[in-house]
């Protein structure tokens, strides 16, 4: 009995890892909504030849977005996008990315 409960818990955990939104019952917040904008090109539902951002380290994302924003990292299009976000919004997006696997 105890064993099967542990097994069930294990399955639940692995299913949660597959889910897009770990906080399933909560209402969408601003960081999550902002980040959905990234998914248009950097999809989390399929692979293309755009860089994959799932699992991208939080601090690296902040530093790279800042670098695109201030022009110190050249880009084809991310330099144009990054300038559209405040420093606070960049942190919110990096925080949200940190929650998805």
């Amino acid at each position, binding site marked *: 009995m105890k064993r099967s409960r542990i097994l069930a818990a294990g399955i639940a955990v692995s299913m949660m890892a597959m889910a897009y939104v770990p906080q399933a019952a909560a*209402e969408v917040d601003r960081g999550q909504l902002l980040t959905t904008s990234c998914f248009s090109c950097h999809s989390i539902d399929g692979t293309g030849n755009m860089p994959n951002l799932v699992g991208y380290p939080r601090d690296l994302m902040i530093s790279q977005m800042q670098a695109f924003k201030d022009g110190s990292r050249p880009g084809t299009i991310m330099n144009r996008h990054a300038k559209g976000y405040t420093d606070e919004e960049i942190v919110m997006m990096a925080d949200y990315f940190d929650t998805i696997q």
Partner: protein
Amino acid sequence: MTDFSRRNFLKAVGIGGAASLASLGCAANGTATASRSARVIVVGGGSGGATAAKYLKRFSPDMDVTLIEPNATYYTCYGSNWVLGGNAEMDDIAQSYDALQSRHGVKVVQDTVMEIDPAGRTVTTSAGEAMNYDRLVMSPGIDFRYDAVPGITEADSERIPHAWKAGEQTRLLRQQLEAMPDGGIFVMVAPGNPFRCPPGPYERASMVAHYFQQEKPRSKIIILDNKEAFSKQGLFMEGWAQHYGDMIEWVASSRGGQVEEIDAANLRTISDGGFTEFKADVLNYIPPQTAGKIAKQTGLAGDGFWCPVNQLTFESTIHPGIYVIGDSSVAGAMPKSGHSANNQAKVAAAAIVRDLAGLEPLAPSTANTCYSLITPDHAISVAAVYAYQDGTIGGVEGAGGVSPMDAPASVRRQEALYTKGWYDGITADIWG
């Protein structure tokens, strides 16, 4: 949590608020039942509608979401010019609703919506089934105004394709281009603003030129434009000169491009009060546009051509409870594009989920990204980030813009790779 403390909390997550999701737990638990039992119907399975259905489920997994779309297979307009250019096939731009159903739990009904009753909150399909909704999302795309120019009717589109909704029309135009003799003239009539996909006509001209260059190098392309300037104009013209010499001729509205009449039987356009005529071997008339038929019929466009919405949430300002997204809506500075529709759908989905939970809408931030191929290895782009300010969606100052002029071939090639990456990414985000 008391009403009072919850109100304070709402203030914290309002515009510019940065409260974390974790702190929401208490409020969410008290109101989750409302969103669980809610039924949302989405009309139209294109870039806007399919995204809305998927993200409603993603934001609120227990919500009852039904997507109504007439076609089992959706052909994206983006990419359809590549089919015309011979560097993609129809299968490459075909999307299905399988993942929305099996992976995301959206109910997909293959049918046409015949009537919407905004007061009774019901949708009736051609099967005669009346369905109730708590909230309705409308993403019906565009309809054509064939009454704008005399001499041509919708029935003529079987001979004079618009190819501005992808599918059979794309195949037809492709067949006509293939049947055209070398040395023939392809005439495209491009609409005035606003219309679906502002750079689309010029990417189309580029892709047809790419095909002609390989198969029919003595042929000509004439764009008769009902406006004085167009999207990414400098970059397109630079690319045309570089790759196609003088094969493409662009005619501004004041220079004879404003088509006043069409002699459909003879594939002839008439402008300048009858003084200017163009005779085509293949004629591609892209009519002026309006919000999708069902949106107009429901009164969502009022007396105009497009549907006014609260640009914070995309809820109709005419019929409460109905959210209009994508090409049909008036969305401030955002262009009518698949990428815009995809972003707007997420804003509307979040607004609906929060509204059903008794929460205020979030401050939205949206983006548009648009790549155009000039050759299969030369692409250009335009990007923008938008924010809600003073009641409307405006571009964030200092952000966005177009690819640089005079860039080396390596940059154009890199953007051509990202063009394909964008297609794969956005279609996975919408239908994957």
